[in-house]
């Protein structure tokens, strides 16, 4: 038991939790924006991959780190636009379109990578984002290492949570997005464009998701690998429900998942000799399901989620 306490009390553990959570924060915020507008975006896994690949490749080709972030966001926006066009004005199945976009974005990223780098036995590296090491703050006991030794992208993710919450609850745009996910005809009858809002939200949300991928290749690591997204996108879809579509809870959910994962890794070395490793690896998923059971009753679906809107059709 004391080992467990030791883990929980260590600053490095919390630093790791935040690091592991960062791509999830981008992903869940992006997914939340799409879903708040009424569009489920199962393209997320592919958009992560595209962001990871495109951002990395841009830096590798000399675009600079922030240039890479921009390219990743643009790549995410591009695939988001495809999903948006298929599901919003065309009203096609959000499930299929999303999975189609995942296939498309993933295979296009892989194909592009392989065509550009046909023969690499060891993937090329870039100079990735470094932990900020903010002078005084980083040296604070406990808080310092846990919070202030993260890279800029982690702070960007945290800032995006605040920005999303502000936009959603305080600005006309956010109110319109909330409304279009609840009852599109409320938006249309007030002279706003349902399609415009939804397409915009999906594109913006997808750009943010792609940053989660970019974090993997530009901060958590410095090279691109096939399959490195490894289900993180899907986790974000689950976290969005867990978060009841609220930015604050989304952050909490991502952090919890990150903490489970960081904890799992540490516990595996503690008692790994008695318990099969897979039990630890299952932990974050099982705990997510358990957490969901607890919050399920209160979950507050965007009522128009998955429902395409056709003007003048009944």
């Amino acid at each position: 038991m004391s080992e467990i306490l030791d883990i929980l009390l260590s600053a490095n553990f919390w630093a790791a939790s935040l690091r592991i959570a960062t791509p999830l924060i981008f992903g869940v915020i992006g997914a939340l924006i799409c879903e708040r507008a009424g569009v489920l975006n199962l393209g997320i896994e592919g958009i992560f991959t595209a962001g990871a690949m495109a951002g990395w490749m841009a830096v590798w080709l000399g675009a600079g780190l922030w240039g890479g972030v921009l390219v990743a966001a643009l790549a995410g926006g591009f695939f988001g636009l495809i999903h948006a066009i298929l599901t919003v004005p065309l009203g096609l199945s959000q499930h299929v379109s999303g999975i189609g976009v995942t296939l498309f974005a993933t295979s296009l990223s892989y194909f592009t990578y392989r065509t550009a780098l046909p023969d690499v036995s060891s993937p090329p590296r870039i100079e990735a984002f470094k932990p900020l090491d903010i002078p005084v703050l980083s040296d604070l006991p406990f808080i310092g290492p846990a919070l202030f030794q993260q890279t800029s992208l982690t702070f960007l993710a945290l800032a995006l949570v605040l920005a999303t919450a502000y936009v959603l609850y305080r600005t006309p745009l956010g109110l319109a997005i909330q409304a279009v996910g609840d009852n599109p005809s409320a938006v249309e009858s007030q002279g706003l464009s349902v399609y415009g809002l939804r397409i915009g939200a999906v594109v913006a949300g997808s750009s943010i998701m792609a940053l989660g991928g970019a974090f993997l290749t530009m901060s958590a690591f410095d090279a691109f690998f096939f399959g490195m997204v490894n289900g993180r996108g899907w986790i974000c879809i689950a976290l969005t429900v867990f978060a009841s579509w609220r930015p604050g809870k989304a952050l909490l959910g991502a952090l919890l998942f990150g903490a489970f994962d960081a904890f799992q890794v540490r516990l595996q070395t503690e008692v790994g000799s008695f318990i099969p490793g897979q039990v630890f690896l299952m932990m974050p998923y099982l705990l997510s399901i358990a957490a969901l059971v607890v919050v399920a009753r209160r979950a507050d679906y965007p009522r128009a989620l998955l429902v395409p809107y056709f003007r003048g059709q009944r």
Partner: protein
Amino acid sequence: AVAADPIKVAAIYTVPVEQQWVSRIDKALNAAQDRGEITYTFSENVANTDYERVMREYAEQGMDLIVGEAFAVERAARKVAAEYPDTAFLMGSSFGPAQPNFSVFDNWVHEPSYLSGMIAGATTKSNVIGMVGGYAIPEVNRLMNAFMEGATSVNPDVKFLVTFINSWYDPPKAKESAFAMIDKGADILYAERFGVSDAAKEKGILAIGNVIDTAGDYPGTILSSALWHMEPTIDKAVGAVKGGSFEPADYGPFSFMGPGGGSFVVDESLAPADAVKAAKDKEQEIMDGLFRVNVNDTEPKSTM
């Protein structure tokens, strides 16, 4: 008959060619192609379900030699090979060769792993060594066990932390596992996966390379590496096919240090001199056939 023209070789990989050990096969085949001995083509990331079809398609295309990994598709691979007796097959396998044309190889770098273990055991100050692996499969377990044995042979007090991340490709995750081990006091990390050396470099500790030489990417971090060279195996097989003398055989021993299939490197600026000497002596014993490293394929466990 001795073929003058390059022979046609195809490789089938179940993972992308970047995967460490597949990259060694790819490298050896590319070298043979550059020498003009073969023409080389490959399919990567081939799903299990599709493996048999891909084998047949290459066989139908008239490949002279097909190289691949039969680990998860043993039965099917052997069946296909039997149906194309004119094609030579050289497959990664834990089992033996089969008539008429099915040869096997495996990555047997347990010897250099043992040696790098000796270096690590002598170098560690905290007496804690962390090991991050992909999956607990025999090819991985074997190396880890040899490494651990090497380390304890010189330092009985050394303790090991073992984690598997359940993915061949998740460097961020491997890195996090490595960080966790550093938190637990590890000062040397066995880098079975991409990502581990990065954690070591970032935290200023040492790492042990595996299969490929990454010392150039992490200057001052890679203490020692156990390298695998597929060239002896490939060159032997290509030569046999060219010479019309290809026979089912176990090419595994070509991965041993003796024929040059495995090698051991150490950064002498990072390791204590006497440890380097001990390891080099042991290397010689192995080469001379005086010492045999145990092969232990069971899953390694943390010892603290």
